[in-house]
């Protein structure tokens, strides 16, 4: 190895290490800070490691309630999105509807509008007219509307990869179309539905604007909004509590990814082999 390549290798390694460190530092902070009673925005080993931060967070009823609200909104939306998107995607994938592609394209286009901030005023007006302001139902419905088209898109490709012969053999075996769908399509489609569901869950879990605008009372707010209660009146974060709450807040998402990865792995996106 000559001097020149040696030098360029060293430069590359140093550069890569610096870049890696830039991404790793916040994560390392995120591991240490929650267990440090005096945590601030600097990176520091907790001396000694303690659970007082968590104790104080759990003592805060609103903060704990917010996590439950988040779960309610996320599961409500996931249930609605998974059910309706599966049915709609099945219809889209299996019927010879005229102008199908246009419908799909328009739906996908609108989905980014519905969940985007541009539509917040009309959405607020609609929800207000329905008398649903400050209800979880409103949050779930608006989230569902925004996520449905993309979920349909994800599922449509999964359904398209299922051989029609599966349903047809069920039909000639004596099943009604609905029965064939439930007995044969849904079980085969499960990995696809899981993908769509996890994706929807993460979207709702991190969603801020929709619950922030549509909800009024603090006891209905999800964690993504409630996290701001760990700021002082002056607007400065109470770092030790914020860190502990952040850990709790990210646990369900981590658990979900772990579960999906263990069950299916993240490589099955290409569809199902028959």
């Amino acid at each position, binding site marked *: 190895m000559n001097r020149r390549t040696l030098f360029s290798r060293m430069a590359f390694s140093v550069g890569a290490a610096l870049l890696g460190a830039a991404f790793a530092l916040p994560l390392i902070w995120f591991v240490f800070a929650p267990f440090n009673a005096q945590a601030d925005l600097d990176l520091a080993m907790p001396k000694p490691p303690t659970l007082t931060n968590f104790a104080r967070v759990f003592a805060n009823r609103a903060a704990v309630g917010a996590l439950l609200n988040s779960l309610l909104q996320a599961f409500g939306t996931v249930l609605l999105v998974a059910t309706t998107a599966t049915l709609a995607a099945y219809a889209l994938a299996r019927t010879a509807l005229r102008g199908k592609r246009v419908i799909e394209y328009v739906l996908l286009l609108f989905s980014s509008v519905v969940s985007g901030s541009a539509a917040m005023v009309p959405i607020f007006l609609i929800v207000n007219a329905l008398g649903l302001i400050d209800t979880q139902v409103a949050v779930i419905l608006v989230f569902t509307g925004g996520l449905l088209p993309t979920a349909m898109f994800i599922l449509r490709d999964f359904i398209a990869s299922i*051989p029609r*012969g*599966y349903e*047809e*053999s*069920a*039909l*000639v*075996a*004596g*099943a*009604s*179309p609905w*029965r064939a769908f439930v*007995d*044969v399509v849904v*079980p*085969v489609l499960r990995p696809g539905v899981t993908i769509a569901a996890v994706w929807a869950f993460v979207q709702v879990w991190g969603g801020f604007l929709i619950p922030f605008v549509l909800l009024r009372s603090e006891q209905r707010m999800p964690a993504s909004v409630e996290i701001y209660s760990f700021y002082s009146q002056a607007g400065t974060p109470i770092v030790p509590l914020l860190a502990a709450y952040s850990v709790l807040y990210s646990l369900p998402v981590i658990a979900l990814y772990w579960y999906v990865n263990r069950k299916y792995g993240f490589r099955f996106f290409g569809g*199902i082999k*028959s």
Partner: protein
Amino acid sequence: MASIQLDKIGKSYGAIDTIREIDLAIGDGEFVCLLGPSGCGKTTTLRMIAGLEQPTRGGIRIGGRDVTHAQPKDRNIGMVFQDYALYPHMTIADNIAYPLKVRGVAADARRAQAREVADVLHIADLLDRLPAQISGGQQQRTSLARALVHPADAFLFDEPLSNLDARMRVEARAFLYHLQRSRGMTAVYVTHDQAEAMALSTRIAVMCAGDIVQYAPPLEIYRRPATTFVAGFVGDPPMNLIAAQATRTQAGIALRAGGLEMAPIASWPALDLALERGDRITVGVRPEHLRIAAGDGNRLRGKLFANEAMGPESLVTLCLDDGVRITARVFGDAPVRIDGDAVFAFDAARVTLFDAQGNRIDGQN
């Protein structure tokens, strides 16, 4: 079991007629093959019987009952698909028992009946496996078991053997034959393999471009093909077809083509009629009716093109002057001399003639 009637069935996609107009009467306990090249409409016809496609025109009756617009589930049929279409998430037992499950049969009875059918098909030891864990031949039998587990009025087969290797295919073919004949099942079987159709059918419906060209028992199809299409499709190798020019001479009708030496033949009414429509006559001879011989008589003269020894027989191909290839099935050894001159002899009585439109000229033999 039941009979099946197709009355003037047609299927169009937009302006394109996939099936023009088909009449087909399948008797109770018959095994009918729909035979034809890909795209001839045989699978579409089968799917219309199953109710997976709706005919554009015409009617379908199973056991005398009009099922033209009935859902597949209301037709009481069993069907075997080309790719087997086994449910990947169910065990072999659950796959086989599925038709019973949708009919509300209790779990114990389902299990018992599935085992019974699996026993017949020699897959009883696989009942707890998943489809992905068994071989192609076993999947094929599972799919057959699923069709058989419930007493259907008719059984439909969509090229069920085409995904098997050659040896398995012959084995499965004989098994299917035995099963159908011993149970008296009414079966409709789609295939592009003429050997399968010959071996299994009580009658074959040869299809071409959305029409049934000939519907007859296998040996009738073989001996008296209705058109040049049937003649060239059925048989392995198929019938040799030589395009000839017919002229009337004092000795009779003379047929002339490059390499063909044939004594003038005495005419008969049907041939006279055919000659009025055109003098292009196709001469058809089956490979087994040709023999390697010198001497006089009816002969085909050309260069030896190939000599394939198959064991009990040899397939000898010669190339006529105008490039047409003629194959003879010769029992025993045949002289091997590539590009050497070779002569095939045949009896005029063994010849089948087709008119200018390709239809068989009747009444000769």
